[in-house]
């Protein structure tokens, strides 16, 4: 099965932002420009997260989605602050193919089945921000600030039963650090996730992405390493090819 490479764009208003462990957020530029550039460089999928939506109680991705609609022809996931079926509908109608839920789903798990029931499981990505705790991996919300007491692997299992079609697991500690994906976290959740698993947080090199795939994830999400141009999409593809991992082949139409 071909692995996927995803660009993760954390957004505030119309701007791309990035921090380390979800803190110290810096503005990097126009989110739509970054998205268009990643599309041109053959990214497989784009994952937008409104980083402040949960805080403000509304998601402002609608405008960005409309702006990229005529330029980006790969799947787009939109997340951040989605609390109702109506929130999901607005984003899907604006051009998102899937929505990612986190905080509101932990508070009210039925949100997952409500969105899946209306738009299908293929639309719902369960996003989990995980931190290592003494007994395993715990889910956090609000950009890794609020702990929930919920175990990551069991929560994803439950989320899939409720209708989630994919899961994105991000290591809070590794986020933005370029220290590599947390392969222990991948090991802890991969076996528990019967649906496609996306892992993010910490990619700095092409080898990091390879390690993620070899640890059992189906897709890797890369944020700051792409944003700061420490790593290019082409370089990840080359590294994967040299290590025998198959990604989508890019062919030039005749």
């Amino acid at each position, binding site marked *: 099965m071909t692995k996927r490479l995803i660009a993760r764009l954390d957004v505030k208003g119309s701007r791309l932002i990035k921090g380390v462990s979800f803190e110290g957020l810096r503005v990097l530029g126009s989110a739509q420009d970054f998205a268009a550039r990643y599309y041109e460089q053959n990214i497989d999928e784009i994952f937008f997260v409104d980083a402040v939506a949960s805080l403000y109680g509304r998601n402002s991705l609608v405008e960005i989605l409309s702006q990229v609609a005529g330029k980006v*022809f790969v799947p787009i996931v939109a997340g951040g602050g989605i609390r109702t079926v109506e929130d999901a509908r607005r984003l899907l109608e604006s051009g998102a*193919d899937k929505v990612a839920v986190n905080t509101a789903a932990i508070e009210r798990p039925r949100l997952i089945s409500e969105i899946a029931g209306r738009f299908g499981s293929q639309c719902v990505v369960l996003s989990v921000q995980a931190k290592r705790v003494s007994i395993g991996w715990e889910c956090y919300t609000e950009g890794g600030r609020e702990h929930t007491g919920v175990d990551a692997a069991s929560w994803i299992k439950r989320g899939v039963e409720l209708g989630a079609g994919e899961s994105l697991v991000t290591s809070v500690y590794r986020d933005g650090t370029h220290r590599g994906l947390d392969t222990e976290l991948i090991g802890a959740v991969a076996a528990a996730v019967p649906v*496609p698993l996306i892992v993010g947080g910490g990619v700095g090199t092409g080898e990091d992405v390879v390690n993620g795939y070899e640890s059992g994830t189906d897709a890797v999400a890369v944020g700051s390493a792409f944003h700061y141009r420490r790593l290019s999409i082409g370089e990840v593809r080359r590294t994967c090819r040299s290590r025998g991992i198959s990604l989508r082949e890019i062919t030039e139409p005749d």
Partner: protein
Amino acid sequence: MFEVTIIDYGVGNLTSVRNAFQSLGVRAKTVGNTRDVQDPDLLVLPGVGAFSHCMEEIARRGFTDFLIDYSLSGKPILGICVGMQVLFEGSSEFGATAGLGVIPGRISRLEASVNQTDRVKVPHVGWAPLVASRSWEQTVLEGLDSRAFYYFVHSYALRSTSPETLANVSHGPALFGGVVGSGMTVGCQFHPERSGPAGLDFLRTIVTNVSRGER
């Protein structure tokens, strides 16, 4: 100018399908009832989510018989994802649901499996190439780059072989129908509007071959 009409029956991401056609320089509009289908060069039936929900919404908006007659009259239709699946006789999703039945065959659930090197998951989400099941010459796929990868997201598929299958796709040890074509009725299980330049090239190929067929 080539005109595409996209059926809006409340299911699926019509915006991205319309944008994809428009990026090819094709005129594309969406319609919510049969009266507004005014002899387009290509009628597009999108679809995501549950087969039964799609069929219910097609019926509720009065499109069921219209689509059957449209296909039987030999006018060009492209079904995308669940829009392709509903062209078949039925699906086993949530029990059994009847489809439009304009192409013989039934839709059934993909199977998850584990082997030594890979875990084959359902839903099938990701990029895959087509495997031609017969020559594409003189079909709607004539001239298509046979190496290209397309984006799939689905749990159900045409898992039986059909004489209408133009290309299959591997899912672990199994194959399913990737592109089917019966006369001018065509379906693709992947999302060309979400498959990057290769997907746009697929749509361009369909548009080119449909225009040629009509000349």
